[in-house]
């Protein structure tokens, strides 16, 4: 059930270059699943006007707290980064369909790029709780923008790639993927569209789930801002309400 709630910021800090970790408390946390997202109103103002979609990175249902991890890009995320503990946070959510955690059986590969890494964290936690072994391949621009490496490492084997080679493997996540065994039964990935495409093409025979990004208006399926052409019977899919997670092969290039 989608709700709009004035949640309370529990804490916020900058954990890497321009990467913020914000934890907020509220009752809609109870409905959240990994891979879903929230639509945040950065300020009670007309400027920025629209909500911003941000993935759910960690859920603590007992505490009614969830965490999001985001990079400051423009006006909206910059304003968001000013929030302090105790401030109100206008959240619409949870939105969209998350990762199907019960699809993975024994071992899962999680591939994230940049701000596509956050939703994989809660996914990894839940898979691990279900007894699924997870391998994480995370791509970043540079050493100073790497985040949550130790958090992922605490759950399973974690590889990092940076574009400039200042940490882990130099290059893209695909460079790492080419060098590791494909003994997993299911893969999950979130990141820029070209990365998703590359991952999809590497594992044509496997079950995979990909989380997409699109510029959004409403976030709930009403405005047709976030459509992608699809390969299935539907002509198109909406990232916000049909996704953001789709089985591999559904979203057309």
């Amino acid at each position, binding site marked *: 059930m989608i709700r*709009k709630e004035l949640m309370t910021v529990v804490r916020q800090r900058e954990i890497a270059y321009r990467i913020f970790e914000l934890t907020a408390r509220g009752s809609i946390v109870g409905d959240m699943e990994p891979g879903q997202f929230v639509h945040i109103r950065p300020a009670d103002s007309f400027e920025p006007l629209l909500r911003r979609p941000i993935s759910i990175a960690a859920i603590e249902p007992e505490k009614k707290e969830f965490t999001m991890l985001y990079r400051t890009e423009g006006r909206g995320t910059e304003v968001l980064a000013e929030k302090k503990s105790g401030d109100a946070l206008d959240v619409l959510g949870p939105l969209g369909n998350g990762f199907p955690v019960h699809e993975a059986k024994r071992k899962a590969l999680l591939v994230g790029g940049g701000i596509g890494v956050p939703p994989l964290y809660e996914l990894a936690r839940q898979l691990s709780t279900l007894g699924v072994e997870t391998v994480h391949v995370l791509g970043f621009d540079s050493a100073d923008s790497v985040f949550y490496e130790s958090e992922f490492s605490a759950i399973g084997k974690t590889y990092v790639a940076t574009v400039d080679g200042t940490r882990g493997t130099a290059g893209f996540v695909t460079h790492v993927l080419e060098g590791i065994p494909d003994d997993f039964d299911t893969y999950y990935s979130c990141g820029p569209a070209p990365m998703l495409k590359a991952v999809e093409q590497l594992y044509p025979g496997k079950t995979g789930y990909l989380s997409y990004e699109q510029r959004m208006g409403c976030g709930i399926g009403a405005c*047709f801002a976030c459509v992608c052409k699809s390969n299935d019977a539907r*002509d198109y899919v909406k990232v916000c309400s049909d996704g953001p997670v789709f089985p591999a092969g559904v979203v057309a290039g």
Partner: protein
Amino acid sequence: MSRLAVKLPGLDLKNPIMPASGCFGFGREFANLYDLSQLGAIMIKATTREARFGNPTPRVAETASGMLNAIGLQNPGLEKVLTEELPFLEQFDVPIIANVAGSQMEDYIEVAEVISRAPNVRAVELNISCPNVKEGGIAFGTDPDTAKALTEAVKAVSAVPVYVKLSPNVTDIVQIAEAVEAGGADGLTMINTLLGMRLDHKTGKPILANRTGGLSGPAVKPVALRMVYEVRKRTVLPIIGMGGISAPEDVIDFLSAGADAVAVGTANFINPFICPELIQNLPGKLDELGAESVSDLTGRSHLYELTDHRA
């Protein structure tokens, strides 16, 4: 609730608040959030004869106190709207206003003729003002003769009253309003979006794949309000006003300028509960202003004409 009620051609509105076309889909998503029977009416997404995918993405971009969209009239086409979307909306006690678009005059006529006979469609809204399609759309709304001819043709076939949605991208909106009035329009809805553009600062590339898009939201409210005010002076047609409405004060402003009812577009994206919230707040606002009913406020800005003396 009768102090909120408004009676317009074809429309018995419980209240003067309704979602604007294109900002509410066909109601399904919002039906999960609240009871749609609360609404004064629903303006559904533009319907065309054939299904349309619309423009490539990105289709939206934010601007200062506003947003640009270039959806491009994506919709499942007349057939599916009739068999899937409108029947879904029949469960609610709310009049539907069907936004009709097309590339040529024949498209408008065919869609209007058919959709106006759907059981819950109480009015047709002729979209002659969409700035985001290559053919039709705004071209019909910027020339008074074309606008009049189209209105006449659609009036001839429509089973319900016809409202014409005006474009703000014109030199003289009054002229267009008068033309469609002469063409037999039963009412006006205004305004559609203002044509605008946003660029990526780094590359200079237009952010919208369609390059230009329609500007909506609080930024355009002063323009919308001025146009409603001007048109109110010169036609007797009922007006459903819109452009940047997001608070009860905005509703009051549009009524004051001369609107009989109002529509809410962009604000649905910021607060999906905005329509029921506005409806709930309206009686309190009327009390504050000492108004018995919504119609007491309609056009009151025009009272200042006579007493104001200027140098």
